[in-house]
């Protein structure tokens, strides 16, 4: 395995994967606990509109994606807070609208030569230093915000109404959470691409939830699982010459099914032993 990471670009890729896994594990846990997977998918896909706009106006694509994703996440927060029943429809519309806008802006860009696929499916092997720095900044921001507001996020995630009755500003927290989702999703676009973001955001917390008794433990476990998936995925993609983003997701999916199978077996044995014991 070591020889796979001897070249600089592989080391960079691993570094990017490990760093992105930190924000991804923490925010992914909040996404799964608050059941806002669909909204996160909407933000990720709508970010493509930002990439299109950035390409058209000749600014760095990820900068455009950050701005656009943040704006979309604020709109989605406002809509969801105002009308929970209609929220999924609006999110679905913004999801498609963002992608359509991105495609049209790129159509309109003369002499377009950006590799579209790299945003859809990731390009972790070509991640520049500036992006690694950005991912690290997002990590620091997420760690500070979630660290400072942990008890409020925990209360909101577990029982929103009780949290409100305790004076927690759930509305404000919701905007902050969706903003952090937007930033996290952007870092993951580099790693696995926007189409696959949701898998990396949700699979580790889903596995972790089965074994953890606190939200904090779930976050730490998810970060650890993300690192493991990046490491194994990158190594396999090197070994068999496969697209790295997709390989990382396949590794995550394999662990996902293994955890489901493990739980089934455990429950089965648990029921049997209590029945006879």
């Amino acid at each position, binding site marked *: 395995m070591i020889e796979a990471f001897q070249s600089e670009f592989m080391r960079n890729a691993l570094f990017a994967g490990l760093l992105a896994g930190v924000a991804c594990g923490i925010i992914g846990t909040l996404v799964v606990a608050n059941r806002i997977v669909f909204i996160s998918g909407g933000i990720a896909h709508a970010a493509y509109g930002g990439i299109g706009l950035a390409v058209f106006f000749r600014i760095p694509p990820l900068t455009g994606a950050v701005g656009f994703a943040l704006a979309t996440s604020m709109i989605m927060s406002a809509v969801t807070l105002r009308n929970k029943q209609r929220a999924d429809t609006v999110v679905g519309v913004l999801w498609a609208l963002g992608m359509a806008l991105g495609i049209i802006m790129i159509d309109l860009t003369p002499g377009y030569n950006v590799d579209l696929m790299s945003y859809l499916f990731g390009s972790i092997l070509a991640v520049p230093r500036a992006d690694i720095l950005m991912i690290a900044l997002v990590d620091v921001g997420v760690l500070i915000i979630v660290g400072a507001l942990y008890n409020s996020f925990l209360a909101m995630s577990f029982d929103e*109404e009780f949290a409100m009755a*305790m004076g*927690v500003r759930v509305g404000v927290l919701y905007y902050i959470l969706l903003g952090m989702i937007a930033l996290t999703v952007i870092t993951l676009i580099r790693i696995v691409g926007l189409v696959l973001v949701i898998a990396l955001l949700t699979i580790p917390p889903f596995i972790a*939830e089965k074994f953890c008794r606190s939200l904090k433990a779930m976050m730490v476990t998810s970060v650890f699982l993300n690192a493991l998936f990046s490491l194994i995925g990158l190594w396999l993609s090197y070994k068999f010459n496969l697209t790295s983003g997709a390989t990382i997701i396949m590794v995550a999916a394999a662990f996902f099914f293994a955890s489901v199978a493990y739980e089934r077996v455990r429950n089965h044995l648990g029921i049997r032993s209590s029945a006879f014991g």
Partner: protein
Amino acid sequence: MPATAIEVKDVSFFYNGHPILAKVNLTVGELDFLAIMGPNGSGKTTLFKIILGILNPAQGSVRIFGKTPREAAGLLGYVPQDTGLNKDFPISVFDVALMGRLGRTGLSRRFTSEDRELARKVLEQVGMWDFRDRQIGKLSGGQRQRVFIARALSVEPKILLMDEPTASVDAQFQTDLYSLLKELNSSITVVVVSHDVSVLSGYINSVACLNRTLFYHGSGEVTEEMLHSAYQCPVDLIAHGGVPHRVLRKHDHKDS
């Protein structure tokens, strides 16, 4: 004259254009023990949520000891109905009880050792201390209800609001709970939404009958008068509430 704990003034609330509450007026004095009755969908839970500041009324106002519900966070303990809980949520019984301290933590939202000590005390009070490390979803409905009561008590509230607190607990705990409430009532105002008039009658000193608007509000003694007033509630209350009259009557005789 005792202080006014809760003052609900001309409160109306609509859901998707449908009126849920219409011009509700309710005054709860300090140290009252009030039971709110009413059929399903009569707006009892909505009224609670407005008092707690979870929902904003379309019209009217709510004051808790003269403060708005938002300012009064930390004065109110709330036991919701045991529905819609994410049973997989990774949180221990102890951390749920601790959550009641959140209204008292100030801006930092950090728990102190006193908060932890209090969480321990309330869990012992409801007999759930031995389960403190258990994941909340792994409890029975009745056990979970006890934990939610502990969470509301850890607020050290001046007012305790309980939405069908005995819906999923066994008969023994039900009696224990009402004795506990009676005890707490010496220093706390208690408001309970319940169908359980028969059991409650020995404890409450006030009854309100709600069906979109307040039908009756007065003394909690089970008298013929009160029974009559209760009948003013749509028949639903008597039928749906699962309270056969003879239980009421029997209780009535015992009281008189």
